[in-house]
């Protein structure tokens, strides 16, 4: 895990001082709300529906147990004893007081944390594979590169006031787990024949109002050029991205307007200015970053464990949990465990202070004091000995962290929605809860199998509905809340955007609609097909027919 040195520490402390001054000026009326706004946003502070919301950065999703304990403590003292993990692998507090925010940031700084650039029109927290460093299919550990880019992007003097937010994701595995094609910039690390690390640079993907998959603008960028090349990407965007219309201001619109080829040409031209310059990363510098991400000093373990095998055979509930929440690890005798933050009936991604402390303890005891946040809003203990899985499971169960639903329908991605967010058109948490209630039978869930259901409360797509196998989007129609349903979206190596099945639904209709979609799949599937595969094979039509059926005419009339 990356640890701060004096440079990092000084920057974070100076940032708190700067923010404290800005906050005080705002409270004293010297700094207008309009001018304070972008400044507070770049410190993670939104003014929300009920209260401010503070989004705390968790760089590339890596967290130490002592940091999680501090988050628990902050949530307890400054908020309502819970937090919400987001699809950018960050943590949001929903009820802090504006006047307390500088103190919260100061407390975060004591555990090498901050809320820098978690919002606003700047380069946001960089995300990556939550199984970085432990995944068996990993080609390149993305974390050192993420750290190099974290430092490059933090307070970048040229790019603090971009046309719009800018999100970067990095992946280094065979199976892309970082949604790199749906980011402003996606970086895929791989090796050439000589073992040199190269980067495939994907630009202009994104969700939101205009979902677009990104285009490759450089297929083989040597890694050491990442900062200078990204400077060039950002400079072209900063200068030519639209600023007259927030909906058309993302880089994807620029890339689409001038074409990926022309964009690549402009970037390449711009890049020559800095290429091979001082910001080119040296082997020694990368090694320094990589030193922070060495494997934990874990003893070698046998590949099999008799106790584990025995429990797996005798305890069905444990076996279920293992089948959904435990993943292979690159080292023999170890596994990665996902702790589900999607217990049925509670808001997806929420975690209480007590649970945070429990997870911190579990991390200390079973996984070298570290954990990761996934963009699916769960937590991962990455290095758990096989022999400890049963004990870990029992404890996780006590804290309601062992719902065996990872990758199943109820493991949904869900934004805070209209209950909290002032941007939302519609509520999303009650929809998630209603669907979980509809699919509360574990046997049925297992029969349905792998299914990603994503819910966003508005077009901003924080809930990644475009890439959900089933996507649900809250829309506003004449002041009331409706839900548009799409199917066939996917993340990963075959990323695709879902197709809307038809006119939208009222909130109470949504669980029934999902049920019909699932029934259609169950009836039509071949034995090896996931929901997504069946949709891809059959197209939207049979699903649409089932959902709208005879009432389709009526639906069109009533919902328009």
């Amino acid at each position: 895990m990356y640890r701060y040195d004096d440079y990092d520490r000084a920057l974070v402390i100076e940032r708190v001082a700067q923010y404290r001054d800005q906050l005080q000026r705002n409270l004293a009326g010297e700094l207008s709300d309009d001018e304070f706004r972008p400044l507070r946003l770049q410190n993670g502070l939104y003014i929300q529906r009920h209260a401010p919301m503070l989004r705390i950065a968790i760089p590339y999703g890596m967290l130490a147990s002592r940091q999680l304990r501090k988050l628990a403590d902050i949530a307890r003292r400054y908020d309502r004893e819970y937090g919400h993990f987001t699809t950018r692998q960050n943590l949001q507090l929903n009820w802090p007081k504006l006047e307390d925010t500088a103190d919260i940031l100061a407390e975060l700084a004591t555990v090498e944390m901050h809320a820098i650039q978690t919002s606003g029109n700047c380069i946001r927290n960089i995300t990556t594979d939550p199984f970085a460093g432990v995944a068996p299919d990993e080609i390149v550990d993305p974390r050192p590169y993420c750290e190099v880019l974290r430092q490059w992007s933090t307070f970048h003097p040229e790019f603090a006031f971009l046309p719009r937010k800018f999100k970067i994701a990095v992946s280094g595995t065979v199976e892309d787990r970082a949604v790199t094609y749906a980011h402003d910039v996606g970086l895929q690390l791989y090796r050439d024949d000589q073992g040199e690390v190269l980067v495939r640079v994907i630009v202009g993907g994104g969700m939101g109002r205009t979902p677009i998959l990104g285009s490759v603008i450089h297929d083989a960028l040597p890694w050491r050029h990442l900062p200078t090349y990204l400077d060039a990407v950002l400079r072209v965007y900063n200068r030519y991205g639209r600023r007259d219309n927030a909906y058309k201001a993302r880089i994807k619109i620029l890339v689409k307007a001038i074409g990926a080829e022309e964009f690549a040409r402009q970037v390449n031209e711009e890049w020559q200015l800095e290429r091979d310059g001082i910001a080119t990363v040296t082997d020694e510098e990368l090694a320094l970053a990589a030193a922070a991400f060495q494997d934990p000093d874990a003893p070698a373990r046998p590949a099999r464990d008799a106790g584990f095998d025995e429990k797996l055979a005798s305890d069905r509930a444990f076996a279920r949990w293992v089948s959904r929440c435990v993943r292979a690890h690159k080292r023999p005798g170890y596994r990665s465990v996902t702790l589900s933050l999607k217990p049925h009936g509670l808001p997806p991604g929420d975690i209480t202070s007590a649970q945070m402390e429990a997870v911190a303890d579990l991390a200390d005891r079973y996984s070298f004091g570290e954990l990761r946040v996934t963009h699916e809003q769960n937590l991962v203990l990455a290095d758990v000995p096989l022999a400890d899985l049963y004990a870990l499971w029992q404890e996780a169960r006590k804290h309601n962290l062992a719902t065996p639903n990872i990758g199943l329908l109820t493991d949904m991605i869900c934004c805070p929605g209209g209950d909290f967010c002032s941007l939302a058109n519609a509520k999303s948490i009650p929809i998630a809860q209603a669907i979980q209630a509809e699919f509360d039978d574990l046997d049925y869930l297992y029969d349905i199998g792998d299914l990603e259901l994503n819910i966003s409360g508005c077009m901003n797509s924080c809930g990644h509905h475009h890439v959900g196998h089933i996507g649900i989007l809250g829309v506003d129609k004449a002041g009331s809340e409706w839900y548009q349903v799409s199917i066939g979206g996917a993340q990963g190596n075959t990323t695709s955007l879902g197709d809307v099945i038809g006119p939208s639904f009222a909130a109470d209709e949504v669980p029934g609609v999902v049920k019909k979609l699932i029934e259609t799949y169950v009836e039509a599937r071949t034995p090896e097909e996931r929901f997504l595969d069946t949709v891809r094979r059959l197209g939207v039509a049979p699903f649409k027919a089932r959902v709208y059926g005879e009432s389709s005419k009526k639906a069109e009339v009533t919902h328009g």
Partner: protein
Amino acid sequence: MADLIRGEALAQDVWTWVKLPDSGEPVRKSAGKVVLFKLTGEPAAADDVIDRCEVPATGKVLIPLSVWLRRHEALAARMAAGEIGVWLDSHEEPAELADSLGGDLNRLPLIGVNFPKFIDGRGFSVGFILRNRYGYRNEMRALGDVLRDQMFFFRRTGFDAYLLRADQKPERCIAALKDFSTPYQTSTDGNVPVFRRRIGQKVPA
């Protein structure tokens, strides 16, 4: 009255900042690169508006790029006397200015870059380009919505003079030039990236 900071100190401003007259309806036309017009749709001043722009007959004047481009022959003598500075709006192309000067921006003693709104960050890149692509070495002045909370970024991207918005307190803006002691990355300031500094620390002296 707006204060001018040059370097790290309050300075006397001997330049008159000349702006285009209010044109009423801006005409949208291709300014600089075609892409600019197509994408950002920035208003470009019509020729008659540019022609109506009154440039003081004496003293040092900081004039709009569009005025300079249309009148540079008439202004040649004053240019030679060091009385002409040119400012770019945030969407304008440094290349146009460079072309009009045979590529040598250093013939100008002063270039201004306007920040029409503080959230419009294009000027930081314009500054970077003026310094790094065109090798401009003379005074580069931030104009417009020049606020203390941007000072650190102005300086790092290459600005060395700041015409503060009228409500700003100069002493606090000067202090804000040093908001952070050692930034992570490089920019026009040539800051050695922190990763390089860390390596340096490990090398015995």
